């Protein structure tokens, strides 16, 4: 009862917030590293495919390089999931949600697609993941009124990525 009354007063700006955050709110958010992680997932699948075609004679060396690429694919798909969740959970607040209500669905789609890219070696899944993160980046920059452009990244896997046009 008291809480309900005070919540109304708070909504009208009559009661201030006292910060009790666990993190220092550093306000540094940037989807750039997430895109690099998503590109890495594509690249690792390309490398795995390449080795499938040119399987070396030395089995141990082959398994070693295979394992390393798979480990990197796992790790970078996880980085995508974690970092998208942090921006969605920490940076996005009511005004951004109002402006871009589709961010919830998009964030969830990224979770599923990153999961698919983590589990399998289907390049299409990884490319779709990059595209979803591209859309996430476009929305993120739009909330800051920063224009974006799309360009093919100048390194493998050479696919289209969103860059802020600062």
């Amino acid at each position, binding site marked *: 009862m008291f809480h309900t009354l005070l919540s109304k007063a708070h909504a009208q700006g009559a*009661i*201030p*917030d006292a910060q*009790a*955050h*666990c993190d*220092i709110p550093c306000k540094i958010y940037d989807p750039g590293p997430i895109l690099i992680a998503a590109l890495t997932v594509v690249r690792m699948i390309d490398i795995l495919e390449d080795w499938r075609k040119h399987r070396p004679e030395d089995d141990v060396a082959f398994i070693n390089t295979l394992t390393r690429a798979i480990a990197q694919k796992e790790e970078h798909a996880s980085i995508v999931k974690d970092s998208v969740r942090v921006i969605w959970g920490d940076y996005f607040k009511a005004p951004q949600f109002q402006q871009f209500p589709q961010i919830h669905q998009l964030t969830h789609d990224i979770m599923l697609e990153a999961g698919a890219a983590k589990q399998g070696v289907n390049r299409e899944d990884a490319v779709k993941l990059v595209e979803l993160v591209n859309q996430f980046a476009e929305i993120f920059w739009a909330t800051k009124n920063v224009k974006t452009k799309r360009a093919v990244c100048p390194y493998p896997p050479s696919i289209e990525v969103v860059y802020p046009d600062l």
Partner: protein
Amino acid sequence: VLRLARVAGISMAPTLRDGDFVVAVSARWWGRPRRGDIVLGEHAELGLIIKRVADVDGQGRLTLAGDNPFSRESALLGSLPASAVWGRAVLRVAPGAAGLSRLHRLVPTR
């Protein structure tokens, strides 16, 4: 003399949860905050903050900490001069059945 604030964040959980309200009493009335008190203070960068007093040094500077074991920012928060402390939080207003409850001085164990 009295001041209301809404808790934003989870560093004071489980004592205070995100979205709880607190009633604080001015330090001018209550006297200087002591170790174990929950205080409302002005932080240079973070603005109004709510934390528990972990330590008070000889000059009256306060080291603050959260109750949540995952709250690790104490060292980064730095210390606060006694003048930056507005007062002591004494009452918690939580949603639902929890309702009103007193907030007690709790001397942290080391």
